[in-house]
């Protein structure tokens, strides 16, 4: 076995794409808000989406967990592969899909009167997946992952609505994590939070990257530079530029990106 030259070549593993979007178009009635987005989102990375209000950032991520279609007048076209499987195929159950693809919204939306414990387990209870014996463990794991455990472990029975804004947002993250999703979509998750609470969430994102693929929509460019590996710039329903965050914010290749991130007009 000394024929080294015959040994198989070691080919470096390509970075896996968690999501592949092909020609995504979306409408609200006659208003086309996504005009054909092609994008590959790598696994276990944080992808930030930036762009002016109304450019279609939220709509795009809502296509990834099929929330877009919940709006009456909404229409969708294109292919969206999650781990290689088109989530718009007929045999895909949108409810199961939404469990795999968690979503965290701009305004923390815990069930206010429900206890912290029940808030975290709400998703599992609704789907009837919760076994009593597991509840304690899932509760603790989810809260730890959301970096909230230490702050609430002594008051798990108290209402979620009694937490601060930042804690509520982490509670929502814990609730999303409890169902063991593959990925998390976050739509401006820090825009209602103060700087300290924001720093906590950003710090948390860094830990979550290890286990999840994350897409975060943010209007805060500094936040995008801090938390993300890759950044996408959307404009008028189109993907203008998508690349490594460090490059995009120092040497963008498209002048429209340049103008947007430097705050220019005219």
């Amino acid at each position, binding site marked *: 076995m000394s024929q080294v030259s015959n040994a198989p070549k070691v080919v470096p593993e390509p970075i896996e794409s968690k999501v592949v979007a092909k020609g995504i178009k979306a409408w609200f009635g006659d208003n086309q808000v996504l005009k054909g987005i092609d994008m590959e989102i790598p696994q276990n990375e944080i992808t930030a989406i930036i762009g002016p209000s109304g450019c279609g950032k939220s709509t795009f991520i809502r296509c990834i967990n099929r929330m877009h279609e919940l709006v009456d007048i909404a229409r969708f076209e294109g292919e969206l592969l999650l781990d290689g499987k088109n989530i718009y195929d007929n045999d895909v159950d949108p409810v199961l899909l939404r469990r795999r693809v968690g979503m965290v919204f701009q305004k923390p939306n815990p069930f206010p009167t429900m206890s912290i414990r029940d808030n975290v387990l709400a998703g599992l209870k609704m789907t009837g997946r919760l076994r009593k014996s597991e509840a304690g463990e899932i509760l603790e794991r989810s809260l730890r992952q959301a970096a909230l455990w230490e702050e609430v472990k002594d008051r798990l029975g108290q209402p979620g609505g009694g937490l601060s804004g930042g804690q509520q947002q982490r509670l929502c993250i814990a609730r999303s994590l409890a169902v063991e999703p593959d990925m998390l979509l976050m739509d401006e998750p820090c825009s209602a939070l103060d700087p300290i609470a924001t720093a906590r969430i950003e710090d948390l994102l860094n830990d979550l990257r290890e286990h999840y693929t994350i897409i975060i929509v943010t209007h805060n*460019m500094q936040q995008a*530079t801090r938390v993300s590996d890759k950044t996408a710039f959307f404009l008028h329903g189109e993907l203008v530029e998508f690349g490594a965050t460090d490059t995009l*914010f*120092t*040497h963008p290749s498209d002048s429209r990106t340049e*103008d947007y*991130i430097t*705050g*220019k007009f005219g």
Partner: protein
Amino acid sequence: MPGSKKHTNREFEAALKVIRDKLVSMGEAVEEMIGTSVDSLLKADKELAKKTIARDHHVNRLEVDTDDLCLVLLAKRQPMASDLRFITLAMKMVTDLERIGDLAVNISERTLALDGFNAEIVGPILGRMAKINRSLIRDAIESFIEEDPIRAETVIKRDSEVDQLYLRACNEVRQRMKSEEAYLDHGIHLQAAAKFLERIGDHITNLAELVIFMVWGKDIRHLGSRGQTDC
């Protein structure tokens, strides 16, 4: 700044313009200092040497002011892309410009030390070095204002002219020192002046490289074989 478009925030736009203006004044000041320092040497004009030295305070002031302004902008605006490159570039450029000012001071100090001696043979060589450096620094600053990396590249290429002249000056001085012992004292000062002019050329090359980085986002520092030119 970069491009014809303006920042939505007018205060930011104005602050960037102030930085640019300060860099231009610094460039003009040190360019003149190169000229007057070598003139003082060639004409053995101590008054001119002292004036040149005095002018350096102004350049130092500009460096500190520009640095402060850049720091405030970094903190306040968290600039991105070309703005970020522009500001970090400005902070580096002022360092090179300030060093050029210092080197002109060093040359002027040799005028004072030479004590009325006329530079004679190497004089014309030093004069040429000063002239080329002045034209290169003008080009470097122009390339910065016009965001013209091609022009910056020619600056980098032409630095070798300064290096060549430096080697010639060294040779002349050495020959003369060998044949004429009384020349030793003067020779050392003249050779030092030539070395200062050669160093000025290197700082100007730095400026041009920074401009290329600002415009193209390409870091070309440390790529070439440029380094110490020694005689």
